[in-house]
């Protein structure tokens, strides 16, 4: 390099550089401001496929009679161990709500639990996306936080039997589900305000199904683990009977031959508390939550039911009993 060429170097002056940096900073700040200010503008719509699907069923617009305004105050409730969830209205668990076509319904809801919840009237209680009447309060992605309260007002536009559930997946299965019945009314609404609520009996889990009674001192039962196709319903089956109640005398030797004819792993056990998979009694377990019986396998167990009482036989995989794999086991 010669000194000649050195003379040709031009290094930007401080002022020119400051101008350049200022321009960059202005572009950055303005750009970031625009980007942050409008961050919600571009995410307002669901994917086009969803929009298209919604437009397809074009039912002719029916004339809907104008009904009355009704208000229901619901509370989200949870049991202390979170295994039981329910709605409560005026002290009643999951009441049936009965309204007339065209009524304007206002739901005021309070989340008094510790988990997030969301409300919606749905056509299919197993599908949180089947919300109808625009009735949702919150959603699975944006649920109502604990302690919050909110309300929704909507018009019922189609008669039928629907359900109101918690839209957080799984909560409806754990009990947050009630009937929402829309009656067709001709002309003016007939029902008087207040009678729309039926004090329904709290759904008790004690379904007295078919009975298996031991004759003599031994009892052998062939059982199967069964699953519905969408895995929402699970149950035991013996000779075509769902979750039969088993009744034995104290001291009977019980043999259970069990086949897992579902696709999920399962385990069997007689328990004292159906909500606690660790409360297995009589040494009756086949498999355990950690080592369940895999699909298409079978196993058997023999135990002596020596202590009288009302027990349950359940699937020991946590959550399966809640989904229906539960039957009564009575020792007399």
């Amino acid at each position, binding site marked *: 390099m010669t000194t000649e*060429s050195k003379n040709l170097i031009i*290094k930007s002056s401080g002022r020119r550089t400051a101008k350049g940096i200022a321009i960059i900073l202005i572009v950055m700040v303005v750009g970031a401001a625009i980007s942050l200010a409008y961050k919600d503008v571009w*995410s307002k719509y669901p994917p086009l*496929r969803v929009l298209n699907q919604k437009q397809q069923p074009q039912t002719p617009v029916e004339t809907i009679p104008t009904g009355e305004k009704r208000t229901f105050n619901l509370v989200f409730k949870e049991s202390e161990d979170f295994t039981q969830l329910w709605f409560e209205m005026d002290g009643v668990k999951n009441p049936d709500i009965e309204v007339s076509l065209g009524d304007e319904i206002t739901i005021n809801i309070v989340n008094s639990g510790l988990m997030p919840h969301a409300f919606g009237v749905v056509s299919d209680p197993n599908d949180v996306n089947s919300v109808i009447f625009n009735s949702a309060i919150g959603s699975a992605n944006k649920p109502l936080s604990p302690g919050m309260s909110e309300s929704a007002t909507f018009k019922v536009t189609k008669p039928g039997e629907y359900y109101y559930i918690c839209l957080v997946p799984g909560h409806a299965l754990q009990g947050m589900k009630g009937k929402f019945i829309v009656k067709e009314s001709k002309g003016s609404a007939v029902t008087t305000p207040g009678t729309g609520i039926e004090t329904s009996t709290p759904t008790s889990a004690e379904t007295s199904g078919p009975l298996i009674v031991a004759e003599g001192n031994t009892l052998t039962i062939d059982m199967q683990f069964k699953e519905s196709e969408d895995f929402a319903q699970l149950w035991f089956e013996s000779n075509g009977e769902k979750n039969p109640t088993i009744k034995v005398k104290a001291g009977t030797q019980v043999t259970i031959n069990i086949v897992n004819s579902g696709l999920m792993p399962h385990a069997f056990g007689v328990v004292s508390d159906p909500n606690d998979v660790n409360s297995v009694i009589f040494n009756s377990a086949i498999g355990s939550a950690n080592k369940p019986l895999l699909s298409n396998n079978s196993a058997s167990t023999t135990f002596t039911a020596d202590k009288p009482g009302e027990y349950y036989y359940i699937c020991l995989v946590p959550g399966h009993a809640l989904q229906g794999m539960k039957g009564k086991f009575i020792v007399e």
Partner: protein
Amino acid sequence: MVLEVKKPRPLWEILFSTHHTDVALLYLITSIVFILMGGALAMTIRTELLTPGPTIMDDPALFNRVFTVHATTMLFLWILPFISAIGNYLIPILVRYKDMAYPRVNAVAYWMIPPGAALIWLGWFDGGWYAYPPYSIISSPGPSAEMWIFGLKILGISSILGAINFIVTILKCKHPDLPLMKTSLFVWSILVTSFMTLVAIPPFAAALIMLYTDRLGLSGFFDPNAGGDPIAYQHLFWFTFHPEVYIFLLPAVGMAYEIIPKFSRKPIFSYGSGVIAFGILMIIGFMSWAHHMLATGLSFAEKTVFMIGTLAAAPSSSMHIFNWIATMWGGRLKLAAPLKFTIGGIMLFFSAGAGGVVNTTLPLDFITHDTYWVVGHFHLMLMGTISMIFFGFTYYIFPFVTGRMYNEKIANVTFALIFTGTIIVFTMHHILGLLGMPRRIYDYIADPDLILGNQIASIGAYLVGIGVAILVAHLAIAAARGKEANMEDPFGIGEQYYDYRVKEPHH
């Protein structure tokens, strides 16, 4: 702000120039702007995780959007433009040609970045930078997802144009007296990554189109309800983005090969093994994509193949590391900022690689999968190795760009802050992962260990943030008022520096 030859030009002339040093300057400024913006999002993420529950954001969906834009920005708007910047500056000099092969294509490749970046930053997509279906096709809100898809498409085309330009410049425009085996290893690294870009980008380009038509409801490639398979997307995605990891890494390795011999005042220990290791890594990059999917239910044979394919990257990476160590061994080291950052990067490269061996080992992968361990692992690679070496190279190229020198003391402070901060935050991420903290979450269990770990990690992140902020601010000030550099040997190491006269505009 920039060293010029013969006459000072107005700003617009630099902005719309097709000269390789001018395009490189635009790339460099763009990448530094976006590391600041992406870094601001990183600080937001770490602040949100300072305490369990909502800390500064009320909406969990906003958190998803923030980490999506953070990742997309850092990968495609910081690392890739920085590689293009240094490639544009140095490739014509190192192969002794007057410019890039196609100067206009070069400028077009740069000017595709601002619209792509604008789409990403306006849309605030919420499906993660990986955009896995089914979420991205059935419930991610639009049009932000479409904006992200098209933003990435534009950036992908920009990458391909750049890659073609580099390949033609290196192979066709190289000076006839200069054999390929005598060029710098940085040239080799850019050549290898350009070939990888050409092979790797098209599958993802196809996947983006399929994602888009799926979102429109026209097709169901990745939608199980329509008979599609979400896992197919992951294969296409990782077939692009596992090689992309090497596309990010190899230029950093090439930069280390530029810095280390010069600051050790010794020739490279083994040039040939460097070239061979580049070649092996190029092939291995395409052989190990499914190690990102070991937990998706691959068969045992597939998993084993990809585990071995991944482990095969260890020897060739070690070839580079030993090559560097052997080059420095017995050399008269000049511990200026570029070498410090590079050595720091090598150390963290080793740690990141060790974590990678754990990740790919089948039984261990099922423990670390989808936990913060993985976040720590790839950040050690992207931040600890690649960005560290990039920062070092920024200091190294600074006199060539501006004709001025930075302040060595301030550079040392930034090195200390960034190096310690990186170690704290990403080591802590590994530990959090083993404690069971899942990745990509907005909230975590209020467990004392997790809270403490997250707070230590956040402090480390703030150190890095402060370090990078000082680095950029200092370079901005030094560009205006720094001491004038000795353009023949700015670092006083007695080695040849890049000839500033190439900056003379000729078209």
